[in-house]
């Protein structure tokens, strides 16, 4: 293997032939070791598991997918970048999943670079590195062809897996691999201009589609260690509670149950919070758990952790119990609100806790040995996982091998390591390899939830139907007490800047409920703001679309607003309206609704056409328009946007997690419905406005879906639902 190293750029490339004579190009993981150490001394610490390209002698190409696929499309999109620079026929490319590639020398790993969430979230440096991998392999093949033909490489070009000479002669990549491996590429090669792309920007099917539709693709839950026992855990259902006592005599009698243990706390002093059943197969483990007699130590203040207490504290805060945190204050909204105005309205919107409810509940396979560990789990943050396992086991990170199977959904839930932590603790305590399984009940009851929020909005409109004062108070459970309003109420939120007198105040609500961030946070405030705008349009008898556009397209743009961002938001609204045929009035119980949401770097709009008859909601059409920067695989982007739309529909209509006595009340999917065909729009249309700006994750489109749907329900029924989930409220109010 030749090794090219460029310390200045902190990049390292390995070129070689495999045992079968294939060309291998494997840039090592991102962070290179301390510059003074010569490469040969680095030895085994440098595991070349960065993006790799392998070209077989028959010209088949294998590209390694460096990030864990959980439905965000990285398994296809990231290798597309390599294939683009390599100039190969995508139909001849096979994509394989790489394990987590850890570089020991600087204590850091590389996998987090490749997009915990999706390619949009992947660092530009990591994307560039993938493209360099393809460009390097192509460069090698060009040199080999130049040598073969005795021509300068500059006179050659590549096309779909072949090198082509000026006179039309061609050589396939496969025929060149042997010779190509003898060259050393420069550290940095020029990359293709976007105008020359042949694969990036083309709709590209999921690379492992065939394996998925035949049931062959392995997910985390499908991994069985040779001797691994299946572990399920009975956890204390009460937040802050612990195990008082238990009787496992019946559980131990179940055929297949091998062992019953207390779930060790993360440190020696911590009380056990559950009981682990280890069994030879899943059914025995589940039966064993069901047979446990359990008694929990319920915390004395359990009654205080409930949804009704949260709701009461939110309304008390909004009624003026506390001063709150001023997030933004323009002019004097409070004074302005007391003035006579053509219209003065106010409203409160209440949004529940939500669960991630991944289709594949969490699981992890852990095998601990004296000198190393093997972990198999779908992880959105394998780097963090590697650190965690090292901390819990005392092993060195280089000795912890992490394999990344496909994951049945991510949504940020696999950024946390709840199941992995338990699996390591159990494997340690049991002294055996274990496969930890979470059941659906575990998943709903022991999640990290979307924060709970109540928004109070008040506004005045003048005779010209313009907003003169806007007050937005939000009472919600912060993710981080140090930055309470982060993600929940932001100074840049629409319509800030478009209204002279504006006030945004945040009221943090204390809770013991574990919480998680992500795109669903934006759905909280977008719902309140975009429904309220609709309410203002209704009272002032304006078209809700034109009302929004009048603010966004005011000339000159109000001082302090970002004219470009306003124009982008207006554009997605106009596109969306055109596609749902907004200007054609609907009759016969049909209603149209629209909403939009902006975040730094992009924006979204949704429109819905719905009807309600016999107490049944029918969603005829959904339109989603997104302006989200660079797009690698338009097919995937479209699906992500449609998925976010459906997620928004399900969350708005039916989902809520509620607590009573510090315990989640939902037990299964009957209590927490996920998207299904019966509540999906008959047609869903997605339109992407691509640009060369930095990409943003299409999952944020969830934010505008909910309010657009609620606005459409209002248009169809004249019933305004301000408390989610919408369907039960609507049925109550109709």
């Amino acid at each position, binding site marked *: 293997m030749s090794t090219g190293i460029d310390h200045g750029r902190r990049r390292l490339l390995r070129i070689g032939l495999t045992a079968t004579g294939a060309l291998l190009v494997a840039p090592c993981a991102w962070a290179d070791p301390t510059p003074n150490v010569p490469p040969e001394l680095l030895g085994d610490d440098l595991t070349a598991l960065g993006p790799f390209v392998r070209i077989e002698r028959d010209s088949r190409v294998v590209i390694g997918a460096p990030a864990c696929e959980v439905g965000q499309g990285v398994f296809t999109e990231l290798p597309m970048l390599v294939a683009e620079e390599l100039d190969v026929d995508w139909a001849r490319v096979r994509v394989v999943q790489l394990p987590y590639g850890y570089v020991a020398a600087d204590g850091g790993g590389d996998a987090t670079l490749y997009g915990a969430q999706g390619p949009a979230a992947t660092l530009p440096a990591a994307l560039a590195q993938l493209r360099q991998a393809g460009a390097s392999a192509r460069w090698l093949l060009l040199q080999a062809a130049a040598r073969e033909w005795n021509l300068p490489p500059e006179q050659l070009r590549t096309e779909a897996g072949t090198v082509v000479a000026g006179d039309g002669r061609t050589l396939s990549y496969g025929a060149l691999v042997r010779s190509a491996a003898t060259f050393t590429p420069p550290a940095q090669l020029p990359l293709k201009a976007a105008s020359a792309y042949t694969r990036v920007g083309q709709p590209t099917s*999921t690379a492992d589609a065939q394996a998925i539709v*035949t049931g062959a693709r392995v997910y985390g839950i499908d991994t069985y260690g040779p001797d691994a026992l299946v572990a399920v855990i009975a956890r204390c259902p009460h937040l802050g509670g612990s195990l008082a006592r238990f009787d496992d005599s019946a559980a131990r009698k179940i*055929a297949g149950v091998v062992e019953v243990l207390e779930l060790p706390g993360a440190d020696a002093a911590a009380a056990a919070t559950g009981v682990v059943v280890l069994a030879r197969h*899943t059914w025995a483990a589940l039966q064993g758990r069901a047979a446990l007699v359990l008694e929990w130590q319920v915390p004395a203040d359990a009654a205080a952790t409930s949804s009704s207490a949260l709701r009461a504290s939110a309304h008390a805060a909004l009624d003026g119990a506390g001063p709150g945190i001023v997030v933004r204050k323009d002019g004097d909204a409070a004074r302005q609100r007391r003035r006579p105005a053509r219209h003065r309205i106010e409203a409160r919107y209440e949004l529940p806790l939500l669960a991630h409810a991944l289709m594949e509940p969490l699981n992890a396979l852990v095998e601990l040995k004296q000198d190393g560990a093997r972990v198999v789990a779908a992880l959105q943050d394998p780097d963090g996982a590697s650190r965690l396992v090292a901390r819990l086991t005392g092993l060195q990170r280089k000795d912890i091998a992490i394999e990344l199977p496909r994951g049945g*959904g991510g949504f940020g839930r696999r950024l946390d390591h709840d199941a992995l932590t338990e699996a390591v603790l159990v494997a340690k305590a049991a002294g055996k390899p274990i496969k930890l399984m979470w059941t659906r009940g575990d998943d709903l009851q022991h999640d990290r939830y979307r924060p709970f929020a109540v928004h109070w909005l008040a506004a005045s409109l003048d005779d010209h139907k313009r907003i003169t004062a806007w007050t937005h108070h939000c009472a919600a459970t912060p993710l981080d007490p140090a930055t309470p309003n982060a993600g929940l109420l932001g100074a840049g939120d629409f319509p800030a800047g478009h209204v002279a007198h504006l006030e945004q105040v945040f009221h943090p609500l204390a809770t013991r409920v574990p919480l998680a961030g992500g795109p669903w946070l934006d759905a909280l405030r977008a719902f309140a703001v975009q429904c309220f705008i609709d309410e203002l349009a209704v009272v002032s008898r304006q078209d809700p679309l034109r009302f929004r556009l009048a603010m966004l397209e005011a000339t000159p743009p109000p001082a302090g607003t970002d004219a470009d961002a306003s124009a982008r938001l207006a554009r997605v609204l106009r596109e969306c309206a055109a596609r749902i045929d907004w200007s054609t009035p609907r009759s016969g119980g049909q209603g149209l609704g629209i909403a939009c949401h902006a975040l730094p770097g992009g924006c979204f709009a949704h429109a819905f056409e719905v009807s309600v008859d016999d107490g049944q909601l029918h969603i005829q059409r959904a339109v989603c328009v997104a302006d989200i920067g660079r797009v690698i695989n338009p097919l995937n982007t479209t*699906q992500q946007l449609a998925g976010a739309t*459906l*997620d928004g529909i399900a969350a708005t209509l039916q989902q809520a997690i509620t607590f009573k006595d510090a315990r989640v009340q939902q037990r299964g999917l009957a209590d927490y419905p996920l998207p299904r065909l019966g509540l999906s*729009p008959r047609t869903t249309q997605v339109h992407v406005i691509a640009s060369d700006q930095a990409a943003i994750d299409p999952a944020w489109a969830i934010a505008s879906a909910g309010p657009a749907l609620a606005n459409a329900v209002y248009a169809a029924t004249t019933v305004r639902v301000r408390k989610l989930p919408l369907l039960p409220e609507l049925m109550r109010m109709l």
Partner: protein
Amino acid sequence: MPKSTQPPAATPAARVQPPAPLAISINGKPYFHDGDPAMPLLWFLRDRLRLTGTKYGCDDGGCGACSVLVDGKLARACAVPMSAAATHQVTTIEGLAGDTLHPVQQAWIEHDAIQCGYCQAGQIMAAVDLLRRKPRPGEDDIAAIGNLCRCGSQPQVRRAIARAAELLRGERK
């Protein structure tokens, strides 16, 4: 990992007299189960046979991730105990394709009805069942498919069902 094995001849410790083994046909091959007759078919498929295309997704038979065909009819493998599955013919996602993909699988690939993909084996089995009963399914028939998909792949699933219906009727190859 072998795709199919004969189940190990384990004797339940709690029983003095082991019950007679249950015979079952899965994807055309005969198997025997001598464990707990109450064990759901789902775990027999997954844990014993390593036919892991049939997925686990819930505890109340509501998600459809475990959908299989029993004697050609749709069933939820998590809700069928081995005692009830015995003597019947089970088809799982692994047994759907012959030399070529089943038209429903082909339609799924054409419309890329895959996001995380976890629910899709179940969605495909549900579509196979629907299109067998209703070659020209209407909106109500499609809406009646109760399979859940957290990723919101329903728009692609709808298109894939329509395409599969065409393929199965022999229209527009």
